[in-house]
């Protein structure tokens, strides 16, 4: 007897939907960043320019003949968020397929949304609270390599924390009360996150003269950009997979 009327969709079909959902969500996130974030980027660059012009000319780097104009960089924002979104959507789709082999029930779109939520938590929120986004003029160029490596490590640790949360949830038996399972999930997640925050180095590189409100507004806009991106990926991917499943169900059962 057949297990289900529909088979799992092929990997490529899921991947294409993930890439597409990511591209569209990335462009939406770019729109949000353009409106909510660009004014703060401009303000920060004005501060940066003022600082470099006040200093004696070192000749280390020259902002005068920029490779890409500011207009080009504002347009490049959409290229960056679009491509980044497509990459994230593709990775989400890959994780979806690999994890779906363990899933017993037919997916009704919930697991796509759940996965996007887990990614938002592990890839964005956990790293952000340790290493928040910085506008231009904040950050010491001498530590860029260290900051990049520790940031990537923090993304990995964020995913480990989410995994520890799901492990905690599943380690408590299904017959246990829901609050206990939720507590085990939160406990596993917080344990890994707390250890990561303590172990990982901190960087105190905000110039004392940098306006605190500008820093706050920029960081809020940056976090908002990622929230729009992952919410968009989750919703679009779930909708596309739902549509795909209905299409396959319709072709699999032509008589009924």
């Amino acid at each position, binding site marked *: *007897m*057949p*297990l289900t009327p529909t*088979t*799992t969709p092929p*990997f490529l079909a899921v*991947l294409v939907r993930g890439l597409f959902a990511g591209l569209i969500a990335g462009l939406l996130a*770019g729109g949000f*960043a353009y409106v909510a*974030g*660009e004014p703060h*980027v401009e303000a920060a660059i004005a501060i940066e320019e003022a600082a470099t012009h006040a200093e004696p000319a070192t000749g280390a780097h020259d902002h005068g003949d*920029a*490779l*890409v104009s500011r207009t*080009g*960089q*504002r347009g*490049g*924002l*959409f*290229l*960056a*968020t679009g*491509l*980044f979104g*497509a*990459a*994230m959507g*593709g*990775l989400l789709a*890959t994780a979806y*397929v*690999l994890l779906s*082999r363990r899933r017993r029930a037919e997916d009704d779109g919930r697991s796509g949304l759940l996965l996007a939520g887990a990614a938002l938590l592990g890839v*964005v929120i956990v*790293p*952000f609270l340790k*290493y*928040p*986004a*910085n*506008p*231009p003029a904040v*950050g010491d*160029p001498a530590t*860029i390599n260290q*900051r*990049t490596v520790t*940031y990537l490590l923090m993304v990995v640790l964020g995913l480990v924390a989410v995994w520890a949360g799901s492990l905690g949830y599943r380690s408590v038996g299904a017959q246990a009360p829901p609050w206990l399972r939720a507590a085990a999930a939160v406990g596993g997640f917080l344990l890994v996150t707390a250890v990561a925050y303590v172990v990982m180095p901190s960087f105190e590189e905000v110039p004392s003269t940098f306006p605190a409100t500008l820093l706050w507004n*920029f960081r809020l*806009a*940056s*976090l908002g*950009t*990622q929230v729009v*991106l992952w919410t968009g990926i989750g919703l679009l991917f779930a909708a596309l997979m739902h549509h795909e499943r209905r299409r396959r169900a319709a072709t699999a059962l032509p008589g009924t």
Partner: protein
Amino acid sequence: MSSSASSQPVVHPAGSTRLLWTALATVVVLALLTYLVAFDQGAVSRSGTYLHELMHDGRHLLGVPCH
């Protein structure tokens, strides 16, 4: 073997191995794309820092360390 095995080719070991390799290749390609957008300083793209500069604002607003 029952007849259901031939009518429902869902997941069998050979297809599973191929799926894992395809998934691995996909992850590598997408990781490279992410690197080009978010972290490249021109070393891999060999475009100098043109791409780096073009996607500069995106990097800051996506929260990736930039400079």
